[in-house]
């Protein structure tokens, strides 16, 4: 059988492949399906209605298998995956068998390294004890649940369909099914959210006994239903000062419960509870991003797939990788990325990475109370509590 290779066939340059396997290697799988579209969400995801006839979860899975096989080829000697992250969209819509099949495809293409971290995102309403038992048995080690809030009116503004109590119960079910690592996602700053609502959400999170929490300030993304409502004046835009106060509250409550920040928006109960896959993103690791719209990175080359599942399936049916575009990072790009990603980590950034003017700026930022003086003395740029809230401003100063 001959396979037609598109002329724009994406290939990783030799230089990018050098050192592959010496850095942590991850696989991200994007599941582009949701039951309904949340008003604030601009992720690459589609409801059944939006998908049309050109794509289905079935054709997606088929495409995914092909992509992963092509990926292994493109990488030459593919390393075994240290981490796998199935995200979305709503992976839990695939059910336990579907997710088992996804993991099977990853295994077939790359194999899993011993002790690999295997995470799936799940929406609380599409989970159940049997679901957790099923994916646990399939080899998943970590579950991330989109809780967002415990306040019914906040969930309504966010268009979330789960009942307020469901995420906590789901987290407990996951733990009962043997998941040691469970994350809950929170969104704060939703219009109408009061301090007591956030307090209640935090209390619920802590009550669930998870070892990891991600908390994100609501971003009004252009083109979303939420943005339209804000523009029309139906909802107030989130206020930065209020968001800052909420962040401080989140940090305080989580700290009190022994969950420490390790990235600006992520808290964990200890080093083992941190998400290794995400740390790979932030620390310059390599990963293959599979699925519609997924982003990948290997050795200074970033690429991304076509977004629509139908295009995705079609490209793979044609026999080529479904890559839409790529960029080879310049020295300056890499520098800026390194500063912007590592500065967000509690570990911080080695000062040696900075250029002269960046180091001078670091001294000033420390004087301004944005960088921790002790860490700086020890050769690292580490954000203070106030600095975390001004991280982007600090990045602009450190990488001018």
């Amino acid at each position, binding site marked *: 059988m001959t396979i037609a290779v598109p002329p724009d066939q994406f290939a990783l340059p030799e230089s990018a492949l050098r050192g592959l396997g010496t850095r942590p290697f991850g696989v991200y799988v994007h599941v582009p399906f949701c039951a309904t579209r949340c008003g604030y969400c601009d992720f690459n995801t589609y409801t059944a209605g939006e998908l049309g006839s050109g794509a289905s979860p079935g054709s997606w899975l088929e495409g995914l298998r092909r992509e992963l096989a092509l990926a292994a080829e493109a990488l030459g000697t593919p390393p075994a995956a240290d981490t796998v992250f199935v995200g979305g969209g709503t992976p839990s819509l695939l059910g336990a068998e579907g997710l088992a099949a996804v993991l099977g495809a990853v295994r077939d293409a790359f194999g899993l390294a011993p002790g690999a971290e295997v995470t799936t995102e799940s929406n609380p309403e599409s989970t159940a004890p049997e679901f957790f038992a099923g994916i646990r048995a399939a080899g998943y080690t970590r579950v991330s649940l989109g809780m967002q809030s415990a306040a019914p009116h906040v969930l309504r503004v966010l268009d979330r369909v789960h009942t307020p109590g469901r995420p906590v119960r789901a987290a407990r079910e996951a733990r009962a099914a043997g998941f040691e690592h469970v994350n809950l996602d929170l969104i704060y700053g939703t219009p109408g959210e009061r301090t007591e609502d956030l307090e209640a959400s935090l209390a619920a999170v802590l009550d669930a006994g998870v070892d990891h929490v*991600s908390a994100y300030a609501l971003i009004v993304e252009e083109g979303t239903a939420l943005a339209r409502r804000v523009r029309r004046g139906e909802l107030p835009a989130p206020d930065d000062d209020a968001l800052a106060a909420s962040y401080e509250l989140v940090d305080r409550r989580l700290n009190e419960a022994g969950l420490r920040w390790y990235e600006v928006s992520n808290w964990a109960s200890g080093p083992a509870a941190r998400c290794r896959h995400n740390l790979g993103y932030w620390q310059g690791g390599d990963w293959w991003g599979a699925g519609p719209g997924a982003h990948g990175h290997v050795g200074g080359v970033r690429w991304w797939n076509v977004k629509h599942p139908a295009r995705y399936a079609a490209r793979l049916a044609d026999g080529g990788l479904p890559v839409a575009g790529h960029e080879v990072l310049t020295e300056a790009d890499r520098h800026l990325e390194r500063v912007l990603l590592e500065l967000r980590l509690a570990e911080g950034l080695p000062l040696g990475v900075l250029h002269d003017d960046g180091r001078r700026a670091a001294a000033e930022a420390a004087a301004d109370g944005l960088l921790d003086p002790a860490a700086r003395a020890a050769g690292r740029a580490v954000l203070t509590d106030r600095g975390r809230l*001004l991280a982007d401003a600090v990045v602009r100063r450190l990488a001018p």
Partner: protein
Amino acid sequence: MTRLSADTTFTPPEFIRNFCIIAHIDHGKSTLADRMLQLTGVVEERAMRAQYLDRMDIERERGITIKAQNVRLPWRLGEQDHVLHLIDTPGHVDFTYEVSRALAACEGAILLVDAAQGIEAQTLANLYLALDKDLHVIPVLNKIDLPAAEPDKYAAELAHIIGCEPTDVLRVSAKTGEGVRELLDEVVRQVPPPVGEADAPARAMIFDSVYDTYRGVVTYIRVVDGKITPREKIRMMSTGATHELLEVGIISPEPKPTRGLGVGEVGYLITGVKDVRQSKVGDTVTSERKGADEPLPGYREPQPMVFSGLYPVDGSDYPVLRDALEKLQLNDAALTFEPETSVALGFGFRCGFLGLLHLEITRARLEREFDLDLISTAPNVVYEVYLEDGTEHIVTNPSDWPTGGKIAEVHEPVSKVTVIAPSEFIGAIMELCQGKRGQLLGMDYLSEERVELRYRLPLAEIIFDFFDALKSRTRGYASLDYEEAGQQTADLVKVDILLQGEPVDAFSAIVHKDAAYSYGNRMATKLRELIPRQQFEVPIQAAVGSRIIARETIRAIRKDVLAKCYGGDISRKRKLLEKQKEGKKRMKTVGRVEVPQEAFVAALSTESGTDKGDKGGKGKK
């Protein structure tokens, strides 16, 4: 019967009529000139366009005349051919000096009045200038085609002012051409022919001088005595410099070389000099051999009255700005500039202008013709500051205000202001003028419902928002004219604006003591809105000397971080930051405070005080 051709010079003076059209802004001077160009046949139908003599882009775009333009026209009255020299003048007060020059080249003036508006401030100002020069004035009502025209009423008004009969006031429509033929006939009948001695040594008055990229300096002259021919060398009487003549010609309406110019004739000469300053307006041209001894009475060069700093938004454009100013100055004797530096804005120029419209137009030309992006500082007038130690300081920039010694006295320029408005607004106008430190000089009724108010007002008070305030208090019915009227002592102080304790020179202003607080407060409030929050608290203070008179605070920003999971899409995050960094580059730093360009522009924009503002998009169709 003497047969004459307009293209052949050395016309006997008795058949020459030199006149200009003067009026308030927009009363239709240039449109009337159009009809004259057509009726006399010098512009063909198909080459015609509205306001033909407004040749500059900026004039066409804004629908106003900035430069006076002369043109030679043939006209037959009865059986006799005549030659007319027409000069179209600008109506805006900033360009009054153009009117003065034009008047010096004429024996008569058409005083044009919009029949729907009546007499306005520049109608009077220009009328007085013409009478001052002993010109014969022909009163004419224009726009009689307008439904709102009230020719009878305004004919009476005009007659009253000039001291003639209402029936002496001609009526035309520059739009339809009605009455223009008759008006030209009247010009021939009423305007006295020029008188001069044909055999005397040559004397010609320079009334304009313009730089042309292709031909160098083109000098416009009006011959008084003798003749100017291209074969003879000329001498500029003020400097004694002599020049070869490359060309002598007339404008009809394009330049045409001729054998020379005789008594009473208007035309141009080209010597090949590259600098208009060598061909000074007001100077007398004579022949090198057997030249005249007595120059003609000249006139005063226009003095800049308003100063403003012009800075390129992009500092690297500084040399472009310098070249551009030099080029504009070739054609604009009233424009002055010298380099200056601002801590906040970098390198720029302190420029002198005749008024705000002149400033605005110069700035617009710099931006458009030279592709520059500029910030201009708030305009100010010139102050003379006398210290107790006897030293004197001329202050054209608030930063030059002496801070060392004790100030004994400050002199500021004052102006004589004429406001014409319906009498129902007298109260409102008086209140406005009093609030601006004005002193009533007199008041006259032009008719039962229209009144002329004369005030003495500090120039500084009228160059900002005076015209806007006047317009809004009189629902747009008032017109304004002003002229310099010496100086007066005043209680003035310099208000500084400080960001985090650092003075921002571009925001300093000289204001009357009683207005210091309101200026300081207004600026501080404005800046609090305009300057984005920083990573630290920024106090904004207004100070007179070391005394703080107003204070605002920009609270420190608390959140500047993207907190959302973008998964592996790092490129997006990086690009966002790159964009933010680009934004940061467009900031000027004052101390440690980052101030966006837009904040400077917005904080420095006076709510515009030129009386062309309301003309908006007066489109030329």
